[in-house]
């Protein structure tokens, strides 16, 4: 099986269509399971009571906002370096979902901040760098929409995406580098997690659900972008399948 042929947008279009249900259906199931575990199984926190349950949506949204930005920059960089149209289209497709998750993390963070810190917003390092991430997404989307020629738009977007990657480690390490209201990481790869098992499971299930949802939505959107940019080629490819 020659996988390289799927680097072509016209060949990828029908494959993406077949892949969407494999991500969207498990995403819906995992959202339901994650919510069930988070609200019915996980106990209240001894300090924050039930307010901590915002974590099950806030943390996956914040992680996805960062990971999707890195993924977007990788795709944009590949598209720019190798003149790969599909990679650039994937970067455009990811940008909107990434912006949505970053916005969601900021809003749910504000909802969590009010009962626990007594304020909706503070200009601390973690929150400010996440806001900058949001502006980078908006900048990428605006820049791409403001340039009519898609290839030039892709190149301009790639420069912004690659420069903006520097912000992601700043967000991640901001709680260690600066004094901040935001708590440090509760889950580390090499250390035992500091939260209850059911809380951890709910968090991981919601994270998986958000990942699967992102993949499904990105695939749906990339199909629209392919149709917009390569209408005639898609028609020919479908006629030959």
């Amino acid at each position: 099986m020659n996988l390289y042929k799927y680097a072509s947008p016209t060949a990828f279009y029908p494959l993406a269509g077949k892949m969407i249900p494999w991500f969207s259906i498990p995403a819906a199931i995992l959202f339901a399971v994650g919510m069930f575990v988070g609200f019915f199984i996980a106990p209240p926190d001894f300090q924050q009571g039930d307010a901590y349950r915002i974590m099950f949506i806030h943390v996956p949204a914040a992680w996805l906002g960062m990971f999707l930005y890195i993924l977007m920059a990788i795709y944009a960089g590949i598209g720019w370096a190798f003149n790969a149209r599909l990679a650039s289209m994937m970067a455009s497709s990811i940008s909107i979902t990434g912006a949505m998750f970053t916005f969601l993390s900021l809003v749910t963070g504000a909802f969590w901040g009010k009962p626990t810190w007594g304020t909706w917003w503070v200009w601390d390092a973690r929150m400010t760098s996440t806001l900058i991430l949001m502006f980078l997404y908006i900048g990428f989307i605006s820049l791409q929409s403001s340039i009519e020629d898609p290839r030039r738009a892709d190149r301009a977007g790639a420069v912004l995406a690659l420069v903006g990657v520097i912000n992601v480690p700043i967000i991640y390490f901001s709680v260690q580098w600066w004094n901040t209201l935001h708590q440090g990481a509760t889950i580390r790869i090499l250390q035992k997690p500091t939260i209850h098992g059911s809380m951890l499971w709910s968090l991981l299930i919601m994270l998986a659900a958000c990942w699967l949802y992102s993949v499904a939505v990105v695939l749906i959107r990339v199909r629209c972008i392919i149709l917009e940019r390569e209408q005639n080629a898609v028609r020919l490819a479908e006629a030959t399948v």
Partner: protein
Amino acid sequence: MNWPDLSMGGYGFYVWGSYLFALFAIVWELVTLSYRKKARTQEKASREVLRKTNETTS
């Protein structure tokens, strides 16, 4: 299994508010995406009709 207290121990506004907002964001993304998909599919269908008409008339 614990039945959750709907008032969330007095934090109901914040907990339900954040989940409601998340639901709103996801629904917004899916609705705008479905409109975009519908528009592209309609464009594609109308081009097909136009192409077939041109083929039969030429």
